[in-house]
């Protein structure tokens, strides 16, 4: 009898038939666009045409196949299991399988202890991810492979989560990096993620087989896997069909005639059993009234063909689009453009400018300004007059429409930006974090995945009768929510409406954290390309139960604001615009170069855009050195982070005499504060101390493979790299302290460490191969010196008295360290006040002093003109205070105290660094915000992970500075 296997993946459906000799005699592969039942019936009909109506045994598999299985009673085979069955049967010599699908990634180890691994719920580096990135670059998936052939450089792209990767790629595009290099970098990121996330320390070797769509279609992906694994894997015939083949091979199966199977599946309907939300529009007339109301918010315009005279140009280079607005002297719109940047914003603007010069010779550009991600690139390329931070541009634009605006919300392709306005100035700013980009580009990618344009997809939502409730979270989760809804039989209309609603909920509850419907104020202006989607706009009004204003040019507001800014700035300045002329434009020939900076150990990959006429833009740098050629700037004097690093470095350089052996101490987590203590302790006990260095990318990668939980915070992950370093140093032993309790500063009800700082050493012991180096993992606390000394003496078999002596010295070193930090902090505050520099308390945990963890945000703040101090340099100045949450962690108590301290100081503000995955910061961030808001301080949170790009952070900090200036 023929056996049929059907594999319903997240985006495609595969059908195979095998004969009695297990030979595949039929196979087909199609995208299913979420219409599972219909597509299955159709594909089986195709099979029937080829095979004739026969008795068959049929089984199902795939993440989207479960629903069909439940409905039809066709047995379900788990897809990873199916792969294994097929590989065992067709390729029995295989050692390991790597299979990438639409949204899943799997590794199977078949020899020496069977293991199967599947990506967790938070991991996006798969087919859908590559698709998304291709959309971002404005190319197809095939192009990625073609372009990757010509790559010469690989950029570092965060490999953990699709959303993070996106925020790394975005700036590369806007810096003008070569698409060829970006394409290859995306593939390398997928490789890294798969190996790091799934292999978890187990080596992939021997005969490796590549399966699934992405690995079948993209030969460069296979190439990069080969390189990373140091092997040559094979992609067998039928590599797309292994799940389906394994499904067919699996015992069991429903016995039926092919034709009756088709009838049965064809008649199936979804249960409709998903959570439904109220419809967005009652009917078409409801929709028409809604449209008519919003038509009123128009901007006046002037016919550019008949206009003679001066004009002002605003350019907003967003993440995926460029927007241009040209206004006349009365602030009426002359010309505008909204187009995708297709990965090359310079070219997109050049074409716009060309058409202005050619078609409207009577218009004279009097001034020009750029804003958005590509601000600097475009300002340099076209020699524009001004640049401004996008928050400011959007505020200017919105004020034009509603002078008494209370609240502005802008949802663009990648960002959500919201500002609360009070007394004509920005009072509070909300920006989305790297991990919650439920924004426009997501809707677009989704539309494309379902075979629709954004416009068509948005229109579908209007007719939805029962939108799906998809929750409000990160986009990666959203994909699986949609999958679930499809399984439950939701229509594409209901999914489109549901996605629109979830974008709104994400903005309101996740980004703004609005507590009530009135929290946003009365006069709300919405803008950004995403609000051009009527379903999103309607969902927003429904959720707030309030009518809002959507300017007709919602997508152009940044550009419009920039044009207004240019006009205002030029009022005081009589000189002509610096923008390049028609002739210069013709000669514009941007040349691109990638070079490694050799200024320091970071070896940043710099992208140099040379536009000729000595206009050059260098990007990708982490410091100012490649631009100014100076390493240590005088401004370091205003940076307490630098000072802390100096002190720590001095302890790293101290070695001590080797009487008892070489002891390795990983500089990770709590050790960033306790290094002076432990180095002094061991030096005095006669050990030579070997301390792992400050982290960098290479250190991280070296330890990546042994990380068991991919959602743990980045500072913890770095400990694996630190251990690898110590292994290479061939130390005699490695010491990691474990402790439930931190030093008691008597500021809270207890003095705990967080669970990760407390016990991460256990993870190292359990997961990292120390190659025989003994690990001294001791449970210790600094609360009671005598007990501490006893425990150390036990752990290292030493004399208790000797240890006690060394312990006393160690405590002196620790208090010395604290004193130095406090004194330096006071000095910085004093000097900053003398020079009228604004003081920023860049607060976090001790480990945020590491340059790889803080990504140089301290230096960035200093380069923006601020003085930077740490939370622990001022927290001691506050009395013990009661806070609204359980205050029982030592590090966190410092945060609250620092916030209390600066709340009434006009020249101080606080920026909180939050590492992604820090569970305790879910508690602290709200509390710190509350403390600051009580005194009308703007709270700024920066969420960091392994991302390496500072573009979004810069916008956030510049917005803070701009808002502070406006307030003054």
């Amino acid at each position: 009898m023929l056996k049929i296997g059907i594999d319903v993946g997240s985006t495609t459906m595969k059908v195979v038939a095998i004969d009695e000799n297990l030979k595949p005699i039929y196979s087909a592969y199609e995208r299913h666009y979420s219409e599972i039942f219909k597509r299955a019936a159709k594909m089986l009909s195709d099979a029937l045409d080829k095979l004739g109506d026969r008795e068959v045994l049929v089984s199902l598999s795939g993440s989207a196949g479960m629903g069909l299985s439940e409905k039809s009673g066709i047995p379900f085979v788990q897809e990873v299991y199916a792969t294994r069955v097929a590989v065992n049967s067709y390729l029995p010599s295989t050692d390991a399988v790597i299979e990438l699908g639409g949204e899943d990634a799997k590794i199977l180890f078949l020899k020496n202890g069977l293991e199967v691994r599947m990506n967790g719920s938070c991991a996006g580096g798969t087919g859908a991810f590559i698709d998304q990135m291709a959309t971002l670059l404005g190319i197809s998936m095939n192009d990625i492979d073609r372009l990757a052939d010509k790559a010469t450089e690989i950029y570092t792209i965060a490999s953990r989560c699709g959303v993070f990767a996106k925020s790394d790629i975005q700036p590369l595009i806007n810096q003008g990096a070569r698409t060829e290099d970006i394409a290859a970098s995306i593939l390398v990121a997928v490789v890294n993620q798969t190996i790091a996330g799934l292999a978890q320390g187990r080596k992939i070797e021997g005969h490796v087989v590549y399966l699934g769509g992405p690995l079948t279609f993209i030969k460069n992906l296979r190439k990069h896997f080969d390189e990373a694994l140091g092997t040559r894997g094979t992609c067998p015939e039928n590599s797309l069909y292994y799940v389906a083949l394994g499904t067919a091979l699996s015992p069991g199966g429903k016995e039926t005639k092919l034709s009756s199977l088709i009838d049965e599946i064809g008649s199936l309907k979804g249960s409709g059993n998903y959570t439904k939300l109220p419809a967005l529009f009652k009917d078409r007339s409801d929709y028409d009234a809604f449209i008519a109301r919003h038509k009123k918010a128009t901007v006046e315009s002037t016919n550019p063909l008949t206009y003679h005279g001066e004009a002002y140009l605003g350019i907003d280079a967003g993440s995926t689009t460029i927007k241009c607005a040209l206004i006349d002297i009365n602030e009426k719109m002359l010309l505008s453009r909204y187009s995708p940047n297709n990965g090359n914003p310079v070219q997109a603007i050049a074409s716009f400018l060309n058409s202005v010069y050619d078609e409207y010779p009577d218009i004279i550009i009097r001034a020009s300004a750029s804003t958005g991600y590509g601000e600097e690139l475009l300002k340099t390329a076209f020699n524009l007059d001004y640049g401004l931070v996008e928050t400011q541009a959007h505020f200017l634009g919105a004020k034009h429409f509603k002078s008494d605006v209370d609240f502005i919300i802008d949802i663009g392709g990648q960002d959500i930006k919201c500002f609360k306005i009070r007394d004509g100035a920005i009072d509070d700013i909300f920006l989305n974090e790297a991990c919650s980009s439920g924004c426009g580009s997501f809707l677009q990618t989704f539309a494309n995945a379902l075979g629709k344009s954004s416009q068509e997809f948005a229109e579908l939502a209007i007719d939805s009768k029962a939108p799906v409730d998809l929750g409000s979270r990160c986009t990666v989760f959203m994909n699986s929510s949609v999958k679930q809804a499809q399984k439950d039989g939701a229509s594409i209309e209901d999914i489109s409406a549901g996605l629109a609603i979830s974008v709104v909920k994400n903005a309101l509850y996740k980004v703004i954290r609005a507590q009530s419907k009135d929290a946003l104020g009365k006069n709300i202006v919405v803008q950004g390309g995403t609000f051009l989607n009527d379903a999103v706009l309607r969902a927003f009004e429904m959720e707030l139960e309030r009518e809002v204003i959507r300017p007709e040019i919602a997508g152009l507001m940044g550009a419009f604001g920039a044009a207004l800014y240019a006009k205002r700035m030029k009022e005081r300045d009589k000189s002509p615009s610096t923008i390049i002329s028609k002739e210069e434009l013709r000669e514009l020939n941007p040349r691109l170069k990638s070079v490694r900076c050799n200024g320091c150990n970071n070896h940043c990959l710099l992208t140099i855009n040379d536009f000729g006429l000595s206009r050059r833009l260098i990007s990708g740098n982490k410091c100012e050195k490649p631009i100014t050629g100076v390493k240590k700037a005088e401004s370091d004097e205003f940076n307490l982070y630098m000072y802390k690093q100096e002190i720590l470095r001095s302890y790293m350089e101290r070695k001590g005499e080797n009487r008892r052996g070489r002891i390795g101490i990983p500089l990770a987590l709590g050790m960033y504060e306790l290094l002076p203590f432990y180095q002094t302790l061991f030096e005095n006990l006669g050990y030579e101390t070997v301390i792992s260095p400050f982290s960098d990318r290479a250190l991280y990668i070296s330890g990546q493979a042994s990380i068991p939980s991919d959602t743990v915070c980045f500072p913890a992950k770095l400990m694996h790299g630190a251990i690898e370093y110590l292994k290479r140093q061939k130390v005699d032993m490695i010491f990691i302290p474990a402790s439930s309790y931190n030093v008691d500063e008597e500021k809270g009800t207890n003095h705990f460490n967080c669970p990760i700082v407390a016990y991460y050493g256990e993870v190292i012991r359990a997961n990292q191969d120390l190659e025989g180096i003994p690990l001294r993992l001791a449970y210790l606390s600094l609360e009671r010196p005598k007990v501490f000394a006893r425990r150390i003496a036990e752990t290292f078999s030493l004399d208790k008295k000797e240890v006690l002596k060394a312990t006393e010295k160690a405590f002196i070193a620790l208090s010395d360290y604290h004193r130095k930090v406090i004194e330096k902090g006071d000095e910085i505050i004093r000097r900053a006040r003398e020079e009228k520099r604004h003081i920023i308390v860049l607060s976090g945990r001790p480990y945020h002093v590491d340059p790889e963890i803080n990504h140089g945000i301290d230096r960035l703040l200093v380069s923006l003109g601020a003085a930077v101090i740490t939370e622990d340099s001022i927290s001691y100045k506050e009395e013990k205070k009661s806070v609204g949450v359980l205050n029982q962690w030592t590090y966190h108590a410092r945060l609250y105290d620092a916030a209390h301290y600066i709340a009434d100081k006009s020249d101080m503000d606080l920026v909180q660094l939050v590492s992604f995955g820090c569970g305790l910061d879910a508690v602290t961030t709200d509390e710190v915000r509350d403390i600051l808001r009580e005194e009308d301080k703007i709270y700024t949170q920066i969420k960091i992970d392994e991302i390496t790009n500072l573009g979004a952070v810069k916008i956030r900090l510049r917005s803070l500075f701009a808002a502070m200036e406006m307030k003054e």
Partner: protein
Amino acid sequence: MPYFTKEMKKDGWTIVVPNMSEIHFDIMKRIFDNYDFNVLLLENNDPTLIEEGLKYVHNDMCYPCLLVIGQMLDAIKRGLVDKDRCALAISQTGGGCRASNYYFLLLKALKRAGLENIPVISFNLQGMNSNPGLKITKVMILQAFTALIYGDMLMMVSNQTRPYEVNKGDTDRLVKKWTEELGKRYARNRGYFGKNMRRNLNQISDDFAAIKQNRVPKVRVGVVGEIYMKYSRLGNNNLKDFLESQDCEVMLPPMLGFVFYGFTNGIHDNEFYGGRKKYSFLIKKIVMPYLEHFERWMIEAIERHDIFHRPATFKELEEYGKSMISPGCKMGEGWLLTAEMVELVEKGYGNIVCTQPFGCLPNHVCGKGMVRPIKEKYPESNIVPIDYDPSATKVNQENRIKLMLAIAKENLDKELSKKEIK
């Protein structure tokens, strides 16, 4: 801050309690009923209740927090309780895990929702916050503790009977019967002392063993994890029912271990960090030996029938734990979670679902962090960690569990065919 007063109790105000584990909480509720408290165990489970949690609690908080607070606010919004005549009860585990913050986050959420006049009662091991209306007597504490033992007993024997029962529903009917019966005995002030209690435990064991069963070999799955995720149906998307629908027998380790774990952590603190001398002595020499009686009675009752698997004693669990991780690891479920996994593997429940809220801090260490050494020591173990989160979908979770089950099934078949050959 409003308290739950004596007058409120007299007036019959409702004390709202999130239901973490049906069997346990149902018995405990009856004890409170006997003392004229009006306790409501929350059963509302509409999928949208999480929205309330997301609205009023920071979205990066752990899932149980979002869920429990969401469930309470949802109950108030739907009018399941009268917001002007109720108090909310929430657990506070204490210790360095962020879960200790639930109580404060509930206060914050109530303030944000404009419901700050509702009294909140904190349940914890360190003593209640002062609520004059909630006078808990020593008798009530002892009754509640024995209710926990009864709950564990009923949970364990029913889970080991239900998959094999011949007449569908026999097991659950018996659970219901015993729950009611125990409530009545507490009301007569009986059932929680020496002989009496042993007789009841033995009777439970006998009753369940007497259910007509067809004990064919089934895939046996253990469930461990963060305590709320592990026991709560609302939290884990009816995990136990799902596993049973896939033809498995499910083992949920008893809750008693968690209570002992909470008591004994201070002993290790004393050993590692000093201080806490009195507490440590009291627990080690007096409290634990006394409580271990109850544990022994439960185990003896279970051992009356071969068909039942006997749970490890707490002392045994400590040894299992030490083989993998230090007993100093004590935040959240800490070393106990690891110990339970080792016990399950040792006792033939090597197929394990490790449940945790997405981003659970302690479980990075003692859950996911310990899978590898367990796998190394016990190659036959088959552990799947599952993350729970407001938008982690059932489809994804079930798919990963099904992968674990496919392997479990294959292992079972192999084992059976080996036996046949013999």
